[in-house]
């Protein structure tokens, strides 16, 4: 415990701070400080940015609910739900929807009636048009008592127009407008019948709501995010059967999926930048320690204990991180503000203020980076032989290679921080694990390869000298000899350059793949319309209709509605799930489908797809393939037996595979699939998705005219939202990439600086002995070019391997091998490092030899 007591000694503080101040003024701490700031700034700027985008998105997703939060029930909502909204200062509205026949002019059709209270919708706006096909506009109004707004399909089916009267139950209503858009309708994709919107006060007049009627009651809430969260928190434990809560974050899977991927990428890019910065921190600290060897020997000579040496430097580092942490957070914040400004009008809603969590994470990164990566080399200082005051010992042998337990502990601490950071940023332990262990492994291999290569170079050089000592390749000779003479340092440099280049190349690949993948997934022709409720006997006619109208051969997917009733024979109820999404999934019917082949935007993540094994395609096993997200939410595993209630009958099968689904592809996809032939006895309807060019919108009116029972769903709004996210995030990705670039350059600078002192001395001697500056330039260029080319070659190799792994395993995209990567690695590494090396060490050649020699 004496260790900690010593830390409190005033003398130690004073000495430590004095030395820190002096080093700061002398510029000794610059790289270390910049490295810490970059590490913190990239974590925080990404954090702030995704934070705010996430909040803004939640706000926008609120439009899909027409509210920030929605409580839905199959019975009138009790006062405990509705009354407490006021306590939380939330605005509220109510809707009730049910199906009923609507009559007009002797025609009667089934419609989805929605009765709404004043205030609806709380988020987003309704759009109406004065007539069918007329241009629609946003409106703040609602149907007045005695009025109704009808969807265009309903008008078309009834053959009615605005101004006509219609009959709903006992009520006579005047059609006041054509309802073209409801923000919360798109969130409710599979509602079947066309819409009729009425005023809530007319509901009793219709006399349609009676005991046992099937009515969806919804209570909408909106307000401050904190208040909404509090309300939700308070209500959750009191939810009764048949009640559930939906928040903005439970929005559509398409949006969630795009956002999640974007966040993952941003987070990982940030982590990679942090890792690079940590390498830079470690290298800068190593140099810092080397430059304090004499000081420490002195202190030891005058009686400082080893602990005291540790204390002095530990305190310095702590102070440094306390200083650099907030500075990094501030830089991150400013950078993020800059990004927001850059994105300009892309941001529609006002971005909410960033959260404090990110600030803490940033400060922790500063502390972790310093204690984990700067501390170990500095701790080694305690082993400096005091004898150094009498006899200069070579720097390398003065730094004892034996790692102290404390230094080991510090590295472990740093590694832990990285692991936690990766998990925090990726939100996924497996993904984080892959990335981190991949990078660690690559670094280790890089070290081994660098050792081997410098050894090989040495052998080559020996051979060369023996056989061609007469030749005049003197700059080459000097440069290469420099490389091989201190193989340990060269290896370290190749490794540092290699790691830097590898990460840069890797990010270039992944970033390109990612952006390209998105662009492909959301191309101009991505499906923007769904048609549902196609009956089996209409299949050929509908197909025919589409081909006739030049829409090509559409894919029609069957759909059978069922409700999950039991898992492994044990009946399920929504009570056993805490998660509101899970509750909803258990309570609602959802769509089962069948398929013989796996869709291209699906991937099996566990288990096996049917038909892969059996040669006989006619006979399929009785199995389910479940989407991995829903499996996770409901806690389903391979081999579970699921029972669905379909049209009053139970259907049981075993889960044989889990699939990942690329929801942001906007194709029709299903949570649960069976092989063909399993569900033939149940009533099925069909669904299709396709791209409808704007100029062909008339085709759909004709479609609905010919097949009145079909419902067309327009998802352009959601797609636009996803496009917007992707656009924003793509820019953010480029932005974060800049940070990584900066961190990479920093590593190189630190690597170049690590040999600066030795070089200064040697070159001063060489120049004193009459070496020409030109010759020294050449030899420096040769040395750094060779270093960079070696590192670039290794980096290209490891970047392609890691890139392939990430593409396949993480982003689920195909990886394209590119020979350019190698060219870039080799030439870019050579030329880049060569130039950087020359620039970084120009003082070696330029400063007067006398000045240098006198300093030593």
């Amino acid at each position, binding site marked *: 415990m004496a260790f900690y007591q010593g830390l409190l000694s005033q003398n130690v503080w004073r000495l430590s701070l004095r030395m820190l101040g002096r080093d700061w003024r002398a510029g000794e701490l610059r790289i270390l400080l910049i490295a810490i700031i970059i590490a913190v700034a990239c974590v925080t700027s990404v954090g702030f940015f995704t934070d705010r985008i996430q909040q803004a998105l939640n706000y926008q997703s609120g439009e899909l609910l027409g509210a920030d939060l929605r409580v839905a029930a199959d019975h009138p909502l009790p006062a405990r739900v509705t009354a407490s909204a006021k306590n939380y200062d939330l605005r509220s509205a109510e809707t009730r929807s049910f199906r009923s026949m609507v009559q007009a002019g002797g025609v009667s059709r089934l419609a989805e009636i929605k009765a709404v209270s004043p205030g609806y919708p709380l988020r987003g706006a309704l759009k109406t048009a004065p007539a069918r096909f007329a241009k629609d506009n946003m409106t703040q109004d609602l149907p007045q008592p005695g009025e109704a707004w009808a969807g265009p399909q309903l008008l078309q089916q009834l053959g009615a127009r605005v101004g006509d009267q219609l009959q709903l139950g006992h009520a006579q209503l005047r059609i006041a407008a054509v309802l073209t858009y409801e923000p919360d309708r798109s969130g409710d994709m599979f509602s079947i019948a066309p819409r009729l919107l009425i005023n809530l006060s007319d509901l009793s007049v219709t006399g349609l709501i009676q005991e046992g009627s099937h009515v969806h009651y919804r209570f909408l809430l909106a307000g401050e995010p904190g208040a909404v969260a509090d309300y939700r928190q308070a209500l959750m434990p009191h939810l009764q059967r048949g009640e559930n809560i939906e928040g903005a974050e439970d929005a559509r899977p398409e949006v969630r999926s795009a956002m999640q991927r974007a966040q993952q990428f941003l987070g990982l890019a940030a982590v990679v930048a942090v890792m690079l910065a940590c390498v830079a921190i470690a290298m800068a600290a190593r140099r810092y320690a080397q430059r304090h060897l*004499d000081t420490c020997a002195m202190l*030891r000579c*005058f*009686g400082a*204990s080893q602990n005291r040496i540790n204390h002095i430097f530990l305190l310095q580092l702590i102070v440094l991180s306390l200083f650099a942490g907030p500075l990094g957070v501030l830089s991150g914040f400013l950078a993020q503000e800059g990004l927001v400004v850059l994105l300009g009008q892309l941001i529609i809603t006002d971005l909410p203020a960033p959260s404090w969590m990110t600030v803490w994470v940033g400060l922790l990164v500063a502390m972790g980076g310093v204690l984990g990566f700067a501390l170990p080399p500095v701790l080694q200082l305690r082993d400096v032989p005091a004898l150094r005051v*009498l006899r200069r010992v070579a720097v390398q042998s003065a730094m004892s290679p034996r790692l102290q337990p404390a230094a080991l502990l510090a590295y472990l601490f740093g590694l832990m921080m990285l692991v936690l950071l990766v998990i925090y940023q990726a939100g996924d332990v497996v993904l984080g694990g892959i990335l981190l262990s991949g990078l660690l492994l690559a670094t280790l291999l890089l070290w081994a390869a660098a050792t081997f290569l410098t050894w090989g170079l040495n052998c080559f050089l020996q051979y060369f000298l023996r056989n061609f000592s007469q030749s005049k390749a003197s700059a080459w000779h000097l440069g290469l000899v420099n490389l091989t003479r201190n193989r340990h340092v060269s290896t370290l440099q190749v490794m540092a350059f290699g790691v830097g280049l590898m990460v840069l190349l890797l990010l270039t690949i992944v970033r390109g793949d990612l952006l390209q993948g998105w662009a492909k997934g959301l191309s101009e022709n991505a499906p923007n319309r769904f048609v549902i409720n196609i009956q089996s006997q209409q299949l050929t006619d509908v197909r025919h209709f589409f081909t006739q109208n030049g829409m090509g051969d559409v894919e029609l997917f069957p759909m059978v509605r069922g409700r999950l009733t039991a898992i492994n024979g044990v009946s399920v109820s929504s009570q056993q799930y805490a998660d509101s999404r899970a509750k909803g999934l258990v309570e609602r019917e959802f769509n089962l489908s069948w398929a013989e082949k796996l869709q291209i935007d699906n991937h099996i993540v566990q288990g096996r797809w049917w038909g892969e094994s059996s040669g006989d395609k006619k006979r399929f096993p009785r199995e389910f393939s479940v989407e991995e997200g829903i499996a996770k939410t409901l806690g389903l595993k391979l081999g579970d037996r699921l029972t669905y209630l379909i049209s009053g009958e139970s259907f049981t099968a075993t889960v044989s595979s889990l699939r990942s689904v690329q929801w942001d592809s906007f194709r029709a996809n299903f949570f649960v699939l069976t092989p063909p032939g399993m569900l033939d006895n149940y009533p099925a309807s069909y669904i299709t998705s396709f791209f409808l060019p704007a100029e062909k919108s008339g085709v759909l009116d004709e479609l609905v005219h010919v097949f009145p029972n079909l419902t067309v769903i327009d998802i352009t709004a959601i797609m636009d939202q996803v496009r917007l996210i992707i656009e924003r995030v793509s820019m953010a990705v480029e932005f974060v990439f800049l940070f990584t670039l900066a961190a990479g350059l920093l590593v190189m600078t630190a690597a170049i600086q690590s040999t600066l002192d030795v070089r200064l001395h040697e070159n001063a001697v060489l120049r004193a002995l009459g070496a020409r500056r030109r010759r020294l330039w050449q030899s420096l260029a040769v040395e750094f070019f060779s270093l960079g080319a070696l590192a670039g070659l290794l980096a290209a190799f490891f970047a392609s391997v890691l890139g392939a792994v990430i593409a396949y395993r993480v982003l689920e995209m195909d990886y394209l091998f590119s020979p350019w990567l190698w060219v870039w690695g080799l030439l870019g590494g050579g030329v880049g490092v060569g130039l950087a090396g020359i620039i970084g060490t120009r003082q070696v050649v330029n400063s007067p030899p006398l000045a240098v020699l006198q300093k030593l």
Partner: protein
Amino acid sequence: MSESVNQPILLVEGLGKNVANHANREHVSADDELVILHDIDLCIQRGDSVAIVGPSGSGKSTLLGLMAGLDVPTRGTIFLDGKNILQLNEDERAALRGEKIGFVFQSFQLLPSFTALENVMLPLELQDNGGTYAQAREQAGQLLARVGLSEREHHYPSQLSGGEQQRVAIARAFVSKPSLLFADEPTGNLDTHTGQQVIDFMFELNREQDTTLVLVTHDHVLANRCARVLELQDGQFCRAAKVEQG
């Protein structure tokens, strides 16, 4: 107390140092060792002043380093103020140095980022039971004045001449009131006149504080100001010359 008065401040018996022959790192064999110091016996009494002379490479610095506990010998024993320093660990030896030993080096070894005053204060600040900051400042200031540098308290080593730097180093060596002062070629980097001045200060302070002085030099004039002169050659004392002062 009375025992320790009669005890020699430094007693060295059978001291030897070997180093591995580093010229060919890759093929080290057992007998590939270089003997830098042979069996050295030496006894230094309190208040004594001893000069160790000898040509460059004869092992003077090595011997000094061993006696000050900066390095460990291959064989032999060293008693410093009655304590066998070879039985102490690194930190205990450091503590002993801080308490009892002062150093002056050929290359001054001032901390470049500390002012003259701060450099002189350093040994006091490193002591565990050292006084307050104000006391340390006071003592350091006095010593700097004593070597004629009170005007230069806030100057950095780079702003001082070699002689001035060495005077700062001397002030630093005496500030902790050591009982034993080791000086390794203190005038080696100075011209004759400046060296003379520096040496004068050193002997004055030595007398004032009644410090035992062990001086390594190849300068015979300087050596002759000491009570005893020992000559080292190839790691051995060639003659234990006891020169009477006068």
